[in-house]
């Protein structure tokens, strides 16, 4: 075959549309057939800068043998050619070539068949892409013509490998960018945090070609603490190993990996490698992302790009999580703000309602006095039969009722000035109980009162506090329909680091419907047929004015316990 025809064929293939590996293989076949080399093999550089056999001509026998060993640059003949970037030619009479630092007896046997061997660097002006090896059984040495042709072809092959490298790295980069953009889309979405994490696990597993990817959070302060978000299934045999690796990544705060050899499970199950990367926020570790890949011999943990991507993903998760957490906080704050606003509006409504009520009550009072007053006079003066007299009496009674409602309304609305004096709650309660007990209706009420001799004195407006206890006791009285027992306990108490005297009054009135309990202190709220709904509201207001508090404990079916906290007298 002529020089020109071989070169022509090679150039044609080199510029064809074939896939790059096919182009290389075709060129190796042309070299083999046109130049009578039985073996034509191309070594290329791995990402770890070691040389391994990647392409061969048809019928190559050496390939399988050589493929057992990857040589370092500078090691053996292949490594030396790569290092020096100069061609080496051997004949049978030369020293047999060594392909690596090891002696392969088998290799020597095979090599003995070839009369000449050629080693050529595949490089352009600046980079080395591989080494071409050609062996011939028929050629006694390589002539100048062949050397020239081989050097041209080596140059061409170098060019193709260079293109291939660029193509592969840009493909990889595009895939990486696609992954990162997918991640970005997920992270900026308004999905719930758990949905975000599940999507990230899926994207990671896909991008890094993993058997499974799993994200585990280690956040004591979030509700999904300890939860795992996994894409794919964790093989049960690997569970313990995954946990251990995650623990290690958390502790060391840096990426860790483990292969089958480390795990000592080479015999059972498929060959796998685990990688775990901590998800770091500014000052703490939020969790880990761990993935499991098939253990491929030539790209274990040394695959810098994948490590890089995995670390990038971990960074993304961290910022995404921070955002999600911030969102949760923001949402909570917003809800609280809304609640506060609603309370404020409610309060304002009540206040303006109070003001309106007061002005209406004022307007009504005078006409009511006139109506009631003259009705009484009419009843007194006119000579009326029984039924007419009764009608007048009804009018008078209803007017009296209206008046008392107005008084209660005004009492509630008016801010009253407190007349403070030192008082002993035991005495005050005794007076109240005496007052109520003088009514015959209270005969069937049993009062169980526990005296506390060591009770601290209280500063209060005695009349108002009496009113509070009267209101509460009347409430219990009505709840028990005039029959039952009221247990009164008085003790010194501390609430929010302030000292109080706490009076608890427990009745046996069956309690209140749970849905009513929140409204019990609201003005105009009543469960009684004829109640004004102001008694407890006024009591609450009075106690609040005193700097105290009223608590209600409702036990449906049993009764209600009111506890009145009154501030103790300041001893200073």
């Amino acid at each position: 075959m002529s020089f020109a025809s071989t070169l022509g064929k090679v150039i044609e293939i080199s510029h064809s549309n074939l896939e790059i590996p096919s182009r290389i293989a075709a060129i190796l076949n042309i070299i083999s057939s046109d130049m009578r080399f039985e073996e034509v093999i191309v070594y290329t550089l791995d990402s770890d800068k070691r040389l391994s056999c990647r392409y061969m001509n048809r019928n190559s026998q050496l390939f399988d043998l050589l493929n057992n060993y990857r040589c370092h640059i500078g090691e053996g003949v292949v490594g030396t050619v790569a290092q020096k970037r100069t061609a080496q030619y051997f004949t049978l009479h030369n020293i047999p070539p060594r392909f690596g630092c090891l002696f392969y007896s088998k290799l020597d046997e095979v090599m003995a068949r070839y009369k000449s061997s050629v080693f050529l660097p595949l490089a352009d002006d600046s980079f080395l892409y591989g080494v071409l090896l050609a062996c011939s059984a028929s050629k006694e040495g390589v002539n100048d013509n062949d050397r020239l042709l081989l050097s041209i072809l080596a140059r061409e092959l170098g060019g193709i490998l260079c293109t291939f490298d660029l193509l592969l790295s840009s493909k990889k980069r595009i895939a990486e960018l696609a992954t990162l953009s997918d991640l970005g889309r997920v992270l900026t979405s308004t999905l719930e945090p758990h949905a975000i994490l599940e999507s990230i696990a899926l994207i990671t597993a896909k991008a890094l070609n993993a058997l499974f990817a799993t994200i585990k959070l280690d956040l004591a302060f979030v509700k999904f603490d300890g939860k795992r978000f996994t894409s794919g299934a964790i093989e049960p045999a690997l569970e313990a190993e995954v946990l251990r690796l995650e623990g290690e990544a958390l502790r060391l705060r840096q990426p860790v990996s483990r292969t089958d050899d480390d795990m000592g499970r080479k015999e059972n199950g498929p060959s796998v490698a685990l990688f775990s990367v901590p998800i770091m926020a500014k000052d703490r570790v939020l969790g880990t992302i761990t993935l499991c890949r098939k253990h491929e011999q030539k790209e274990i943990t040394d695959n810098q790009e994948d490590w890089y991507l995995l670390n990038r993903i971990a960074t993304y998760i961290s910022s995404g999580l921070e955002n999600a957490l911030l969102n949760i906080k923001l949402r909570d704050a917003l809800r609280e703000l809304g609640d506060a606003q609603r309370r404020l509006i409610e309060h304002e409504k009540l206040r303006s309602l109070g003001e309106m009520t007061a002005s209406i009550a004022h307007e009504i009072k005078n006409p009511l006095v006139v109506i009631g007053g003259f009705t009484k006079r009419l009843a007194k003066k006119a000579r009326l039969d029984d039924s007419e007299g009764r009608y007048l009496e009804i009018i008078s009674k209803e007017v009296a009722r209206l008046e008392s409602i107005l008084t209660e309304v005004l009492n509630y609305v008016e801010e009253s000035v407190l007349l403070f004096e030192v008082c002993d709650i035991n005495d005050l309660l005794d007076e109240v109980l005496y007052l109520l007990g003088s009514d015959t209706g209270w005969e069937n009420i049993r009062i169980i009162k526990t005296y506390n001799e060591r009770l601290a004195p209280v500063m209060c407006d005695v009349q108002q506090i009496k009113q509070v206890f009267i209101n509460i006791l009347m409430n219990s009285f009505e709840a028990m329909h005039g029959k039952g027992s009221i247990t009164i306990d008085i003790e010194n108490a501390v609430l929010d680091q302030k000292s109080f005297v706490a009076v608890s009054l427990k009745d046996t009135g069956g309690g209140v419907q749970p849905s009513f309990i929140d409204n019990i202190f609201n003005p105009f709220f009543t469960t009684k047929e004829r109640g004004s709904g102001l008694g407890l509201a006024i009591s609450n207001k009075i106690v609040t004015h005193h700097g105290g508090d009223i608590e209600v404990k409702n036990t449906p079916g049993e009764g209600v316990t009111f506890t009145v906290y009154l501030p103790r007298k300041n001893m200073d």
Partner: protein
Amino acid sequence: MEAKRILLVDDEEHIRLLFKEELEEEGYLIDLASNGLEALEKLKGQRFDLVVLDIKMPGMDGIQTLGEIKKTDKDQRVILCSAYGEFKQDFSSWASDAYVVKSADTSELKETIKRIVGA
């Protein structure tokens, strides 16, 4: 015994009428005024055992009127009689001899008057 003279001051005609009738029944001599200024005019020329004074009145209100009365004659007996209890908190109202909340039931008013001026 000579009947006690009471000056009843209220801007509401019907209230005046009601109280006048109620109190006359109790044997008091009642004179009426519909506002503070009118009351002060009446007090200049005559002597009353008691003034029953409404608080919320147009022009000069009851509390102001009370002040004027007590300035001229600190021994003049005055009962404040209002539809509302809130003025009890007004220190100026403490100058009065009593404070009665108006009610269709006039018994509290009557009792208070009786306590202050006698039957």
